């Protein structure tokens, strides 16, 4: 069952597709944590709980509540409404767990820049001392290297965001590649997925560089290549990202009654 209007337009937004794609990578035994501006991963986690991963735990990084009930999804990770949840941790507890590394299995991340090895930068574009663009700051991204799987999402897919090497490394991905990554002894599994409005990408197991996995409906491979500022690994055959099912969309929209993901 696909989801198109009678004149053939897609009946879901790019953000809704991103949430569904993230949701599909979550497992029943995951414990996830998300931070700033996290409507998309919030919905991804709740959707996973309502479908294939009922036992998944998700932590809202601002309020630090566990399994917020999300009716509706709220835009801020610190929202009072997120406290309608199964349990409450303190921010201090969550920071401790992020450092412990063997408990939290998924960290949702993003950046002003994301590089070929999945390193993220939320601090500054250009020379740090005289930045062309000062970002807000890195919050908890340094913990990317400790928590199980890193799932990166960003609503910008262009050569300024996807760069060969971040100008400032504030969230470790595979660092400068296999040698440095292996030598680091960091406990996390590193970045596993990047979801953008154009495509989903993974990482090549040998080179640890980003590799195209699927292109979203209506997007072609050349478009992704042109929008990526580094030499993206592109397999011979690139499938199209499956469209969300009517059931997924219906569940998602029942959560997103404020329409935070709608039309974006």
């Amino acid at each position: 069952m696909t989801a198109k209007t009678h004149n053939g337009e897609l009946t879901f937004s790019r953000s809704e597709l991103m949430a569904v794609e993230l949701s599909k990578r979550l497992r029943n035994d995951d414990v996830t944590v998300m931070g700033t501006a996290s409507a998309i991963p919030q919905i991804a986690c709740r959707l996973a709980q309502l479908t294939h991963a009922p036992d998944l735990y998700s932590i809202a990084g601002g309020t630090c509540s566990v399994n917020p009930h999300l009716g509706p999804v709220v835009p801020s990770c610190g929202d009072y409404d997120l406290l309608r949840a199964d349990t409450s941790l303190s921010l201090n507890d969550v920071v401790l767990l992020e450092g412990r590394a063997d408990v939290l299995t998924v960290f949702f991340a993003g950046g002003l820049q994301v590089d070929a090895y999945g390193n993220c930068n939320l601090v500054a574009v250009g020379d740090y001392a005289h930045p062309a663009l000062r970002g807000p700051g890195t919050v908890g991204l340094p913990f990317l290297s400790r928590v199980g799987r890193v799932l990166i999402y960003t609503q910008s897919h262009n050569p300024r965001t996807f760069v060969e090497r971040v100008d400032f490394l504030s969230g470790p991905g595979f660092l400068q590649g296999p040698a440095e990554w292996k030598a680091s002894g960091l406990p996390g599994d590193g970045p596993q997925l990047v979801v953008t409005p154009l495509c989903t990408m993974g990482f090549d197991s040998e080179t640890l560089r980003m590799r195209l996995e699927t292109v979203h409906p209506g997007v072609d491979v050349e478009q992704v290549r042109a929008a990526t500022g580094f030499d993206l690994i592109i397999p011979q055959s690139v499938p199209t990202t499956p469209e969300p099912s009517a059931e997924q969309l219906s569940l998602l929209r029942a959560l997103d009654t404020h329409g935070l993901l709608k039309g974006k």
Partner: protein
Amino acid sequence: MTKVISLSEAVDRYVPNGVGLLTVGGMHLHNNPMALIREVIRQNRRITRLLTSPCGALNAELLIAAGLVDEIATSYVGFEHIGLAPSFRRSVESGSIKVLECDEAYITHGLYAGAGGLPFVALPKGIEFTDIPKVNSENYSFTTDPFTGETVPVGAPLKPDVALLHAYQADEHGNAVVAGAHFVDRYMALASKTVILQVEEIVPTDEISKHPQGTTIPGFLVHGVVEAPGGCYPTASHGAYNFDDQAIAEYIGMAKDDAGTKQYVKQFVTDLNEAQYLHNASERIEKLRYGRGPLAVALSERKA
């Protein structure tokens, strides 16, 4: 002995001009102690160094917009889904403010160390693979783990001179209830030499002591209590009202350049006293009050 004090007297007495390390409570668009911050701007107090929670928002941005901040130790200043913080961004890009680049774990553990008299805090492996310690040797360093012989990253303790915090309720002694998320506000209270609280409402001690387990800031840490209903606006006050995204967007719009920023500070802060500001905001605040969800009910039961 009452610690209740007026807004202007609180800032006059407890926030010296040129204060060494000032910290402001709340996180993202929530529980920012805006009444106190607006008053700091009205009284034109220079801040040598400002420390935010892991995520600063209007609490830091407005002080920067008013040109009062020399240095800021932070891991984030911004407005989450609404946008970047224009004055923070412009001040850093132009070099008119110095950033002590921090990460969330360091701020959290650093306040813990400051609260507990720990000489420093050893940090989990990982931060040394980022560029953050490279640009902030004042807060980050390295030492030897004597148990393993390895070199490990460490952070300096954070010991603010003054903390400006919001709580939902307090009694006249400063015993305070935090409704909703605590963020790192309690650690700021534990680590700071002087603590000024603004609260939605001052209540009798016997009211507050009915639920001691919800009253998590003890009066002995608090130096002044200011009754400031609506005082977090336009950010949210957990338990009372939500943030006003329109008002934040309006700020971002005006603060696009220096002239607009000055105009905002004049129009919304220095030209008004707090009563006038709140009078103008009162209709919006009423619209933003939380409904009777489970948490609002739990709090109203507290008061019943």
